[in-house]
């Protein structure tokens, strides 16, 4: 069952198949409702679309959650909180980015304080396109995520561990609004 006593654990190869099966069938979600996408969540949770039939349940804190669902645009200030929350989640953890804002900034493509590509700061496993995506899109993304977990491709959290320094460098740059070769102080 993937339980090993003592120091022998924590090898990726020993990640048993049953553990993959159970982690795919029980995705607990933390919805970081910053943008307008939050309005799509109630239909997904309630009787019309009912995400609970796939074992997906909303959680209150990142410690308990497996999936971080980011619903919409992120300013630099919000990004700091998102990263804080992401780092508090327990591995294996996945990120679903919702709406075009997280892909390329969307309608905030030229805003001075909205980040454009979420993937540069935290690894994203599944994107949902659209402005707004429909609830079916969210369900579809979760099913896609389940497939990816099953195939062993949803490894964003491993990527984050592996390239931790690079991610931290990107995050530091954007938090400090640091433009290369330009250090003007207003």
């Amino acid at each position, binding site marked *: 069952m*993937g339980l090993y006593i003592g120091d022998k654990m924590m090898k990726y190869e020993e990640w048993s198949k049953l*553990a993959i099966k159970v982690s795919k069938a*029980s995705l607990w979600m933390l919805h970081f409702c910053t943008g307008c996408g939050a309005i799509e969540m109630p239909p997904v949770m309630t009787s019309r679309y009912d995400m*609970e039939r796939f074992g997906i349940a909303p959680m209150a804190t990142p*410690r308990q959650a497996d999936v971080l669902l980011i619903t919409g645009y992120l300013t630099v200030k919000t990004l700091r909180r998102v990263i804080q929350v992401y780092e508090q989640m*327990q591995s294996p953890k996945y990120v679903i980015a919702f709406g075009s804002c997280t892909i390329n900034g969307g309608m905030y493509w030229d805003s001075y304080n909205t980040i454009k590509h979420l993937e540069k700061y935290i690894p994203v496993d599944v994107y949902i396109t659209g402005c707004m995506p429909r609830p079916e899109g969210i369900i579809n993304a979760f099913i896609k995520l389940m497939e990816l977990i099953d195939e062993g491709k949803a490894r964003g959290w491993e990527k984050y561990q592996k390239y931790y320094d690079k991610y931290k460098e990107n995050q530091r740059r954007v938090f400090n609004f640091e433009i290369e070769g330009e250090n003007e102080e207003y």
Partner: protein
Amino acid sequence: MDVMGIAIKVALLTAYAVIGTCVGLLFMGIGRKIIARVHNRVGPPFYQNFIDVAKLLSKKTNISHGWIFDLALLFSISGILLTLLFLPIGGVQLLSMEGDAFLVLYLLAIPALGFALGAGASGNPNAGVGVMRALVMMLSYELPFIITLIALMIYYDTTSLATIVRMQSINGVKSWAITMPPFMLAAFAADMALQGMLMEQPFDIPVAPHEIASGPMVEFGGKYLGSLMLYKAIALVAETTLFVDLFLGGGVVAHGNFAFVINFIVWLALIFLLFILSILIAASFPRFRIEQAFGFYWKYEAIIAAISLIWVYILVIK
């Protein structure tokens, strides 16, 4: 007691610990399904909670806040298993001859206190508030529950759960406590107390995910949360069994050759019915505020329980 006898006893206790855990998880899954049906949803499969626990226990990273935080894991599971084994289940006495109802009442506090210690050790303010609410809830629902318990005890002139069950099973269903009018009132009060014990709505004030980020559990993840889910599952079985032992004769209806199997099935059916009742109440009511819950228990429930106690007292004195 000889070696063989001890071995059989240990095997029986282990079997009931496993059965209690599985039944609890199964019921929680069924409860989720029922709530989903009430909401006109499809709901998760009935085995969903097994998957959830397995997933939590197989998480790769786990965050602890120090050794006091770990006490939550150690004490929650061991304490609730201990409680379960001191209850007579379906006519099987287990260890219930070694203790009594007061012991069970206090044993229920071990996992709760361990849990509270772990939650407090995390240093999260939400956890502190959650534990405070849980303790105030405990003070609230214990009053009617204690009064009904005392009513039963003075009626049967014993505090031992095993004896209470035996005396209620003499004539099968007819001798169950709930068939007597004073104990009908008491059972109503105790059932409301059970609702609070199970922390189901309208008394899920301590966890309140939307107000205080699931309260005491705010910092629990991975194996810690998994162990707490196990605790909750076993607690569900233990608390409903306590009610069944007190008012429904422990589910004992048959004596004789196949009595063991029949009694087990009846016990299972009874705790399932109790659980369904509590789930249906939970599905139809919103959450109380803590003062409202306190007032509800200490005013109305306590008065109902006190009436039954006085009634029983008059019966006994006569």
